[in-house]
């Protein structure tokens, strides 16, 4: 019997099944409990929580993009935060233009920070960002083009391993420094903020918040199905082959550098979309998103969840960020130490992450079961 595509992508294994069900469930239940259940009911979910969960969904999509290049292609990117931030800035620019003359200075064309810097006119690279379709295009294109240029240079000269990782760190660090500059034209260290509306809807409205939450859930699930499609295709097989033995792939006549570039760009775009959905929910984008430590954190999420499974990355993003929310409220200075500690623990004791533990336990169970069965068979015979 032919399975439908959706079945193959989202329900082919336990991890995917659980993930699909959980995401669809929260995408429906959370908005209902926020919008339809009265505030004084114990079942009510606050808008704060909706936004927090929405943030996690964006992080999960980001983790997915990291897993695609790290878990499948074998490139440890320590610069994926840059792609996330670029998508976020593209969205931020659109939201800034939506403010119109409601800014502090009331300038109908220029965002406040430009007025403050005494700029006479809008820089050319801000043109068109008041149109959502163009902004949307840029949410894909900005990270995609950066990834293309970076990857083209790096993969063509066959930079691999640690050197490549260091280059990705340098890339995000350089961008951070650039975005910190006031004359770079993206609001300097304050970044872009004070957004009012998205597509004409007030960003402070609960309904808008819930819509953004649902959009993030849809993006995550689509991103998941998309990555899964790649992973299950012959291209995915090749991608893993490149990870395990790149020269073998090359001597079979494949252009390994093109395949790497393709996956790297796709992954950067996914990260960009995650950033674009993140910004209207948190209400700000600033250069700290480019900080090298942010990109390292992403990798830790994926490592903790379990790389090379896709759902492991999603799980890791949720677990670590939940822990972060919890611990930063309780002991903010300690968080990085805790994260570092967990990371060391995971790399030493659970190299396949949380999902690895589950899979191990399951295979141990089935082994036990089959052993019992065979013993029973012996007794019966």
């Amino acid at each position, binding site marked *: 019997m032919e399975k439908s595509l959706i079945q193959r992508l989202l329900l082919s294994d336990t991890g995917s099944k659980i993930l699909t069900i959980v995401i669809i469930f929260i995408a429906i239940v959370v908005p209902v409990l926020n919008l339809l259940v009265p505030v004084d009911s114990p079942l009510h979910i606050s808008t704060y929580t909706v936004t927090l969960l929405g943030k996690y969904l964006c992080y999960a999509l980001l983790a997915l993009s990291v897993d695609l290049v790290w878990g499948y292609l074998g490139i440890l990117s320590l610069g994926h935060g840059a792609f996330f931030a670029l998508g976020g800035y593209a969205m931020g620019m659109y939201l800034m233009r939506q403010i119109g003359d409601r800014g502090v200075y009331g300038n109908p064309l220029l965002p406040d920070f430009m007025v403050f810097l005494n700029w006479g006119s809008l820089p050319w690279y801000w043109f068109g960002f008041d149109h959502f379709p163009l902004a949307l295009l840029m949410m894909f294109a900005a990270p995609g083009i950066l990834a293309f240029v970076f990857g083209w240079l790096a993969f063509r000269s066959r930079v691999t391993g640690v050197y490549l990782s260091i280059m990705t760190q340098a890339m995000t660090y350089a961008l951070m420094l650039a975005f910190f500059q006031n004359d770079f034209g993206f609001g300097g260290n304050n970044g872009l903020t004070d957004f009012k509306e998205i597509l004409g809807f007030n960003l402070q409205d609960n309904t808008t918040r819930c819509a953004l939450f649902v959009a993030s859930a849809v993006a995550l699930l689509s991103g998941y199905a998309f990555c899964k499609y790649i992973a299950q295709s012959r291209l995915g097989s090749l991608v893993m082959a490149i990870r395990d033995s790149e020269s*073998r792939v090359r001597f079979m006549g494949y252009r390994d550098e093109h395949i790497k570039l*393709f996956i790297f760009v796709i992954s950067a775009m996914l990260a960009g979309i995650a950033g674009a959905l993140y910004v209207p929910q948190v209400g700000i984008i600033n250069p700290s998103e480019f900080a090298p430590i942010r990109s390292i954190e992403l990798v830790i999420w994926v490592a903790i969840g379990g790389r090379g499974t896709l759902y492991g990355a999603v799980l890791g993003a949720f677990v670590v960020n939940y822990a972060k929310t919890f611990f930063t409220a309780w002991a903010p200075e300690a968080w990085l130490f805790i994260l570092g500690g967990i990371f060391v623990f995971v790399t030493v004791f659970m190299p396949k992450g949380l999902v690895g533990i589950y899979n191990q336990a399951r295979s141990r169970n089935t082994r036990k079961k089959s052993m019992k069965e065979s013993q029973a068979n012996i007794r019966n015979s």
Partner: protein
Amino acid sequence: MEKNESILYLNNVSVSFDGFKAINELSLYIDKNELRCIIGANGAGKTTMMDIITGKTKPDEGEVYFGDHIDLTKKDEAEIANLGIGRKFQKPTVFENHSVFENLQLALEGHRNILSNLFYELNEDQRNKIDSSLETIGLEAEKYRMAGELSHGQKQWLEIGMLITQNPQVLLVDEPVAGMTHQESERTAELLTSLATRHSVVVVEHDMEFVRSIARRVTVLHQGSVLAEGTMDKIQNDRKVIEVYLGD
């Protein structure tokens, strides 16, 4: 030997690494459907010669031609592979986290670009091709096993199987029986001999008994150039060869 019969043609090729001449004015011709053995001590330049043919190393001097007029020095690894030159590495290299079947499937000729791989569906014909490769290398029973679980010898066969599935005109096989039991090497000898009816096969090997069992024509490499060439008998009685290589 006339040039127009040869499929691979190296003329006066030299390459040096940091001043050390690994290949020194090497000339070599391989004919269509020939089975050629290359022997030589460690460091004689055998693997480097394969690196040059497959585009991994660019020669400093000399000509490398495939067929009559394809200049291999101007092509890169993927182009050369697609022209029809396949290679087995000295250290067996298969995709350990893929099944034997998937390993062969990736080797199948055609479909080398990204989009066609993204939307790829295996057809009946291709399935049969993979099955016939499996039969040739005797790994039918291991079809769905992870390549990483195979024994050393089986990995060598799988890699040869991947070459066959790729269907190149020339197979360059670097030390195929290293680490194999006596029986396994005998099977490998049969396999390579049978391949030479449809492909040109160049085998690099240290194991003299193995070479004797398959060789029709043997080339002895020494310090990056050809020391002697001919039948096994001729080689074994060659004074120079006895001096530097076979001599006890």
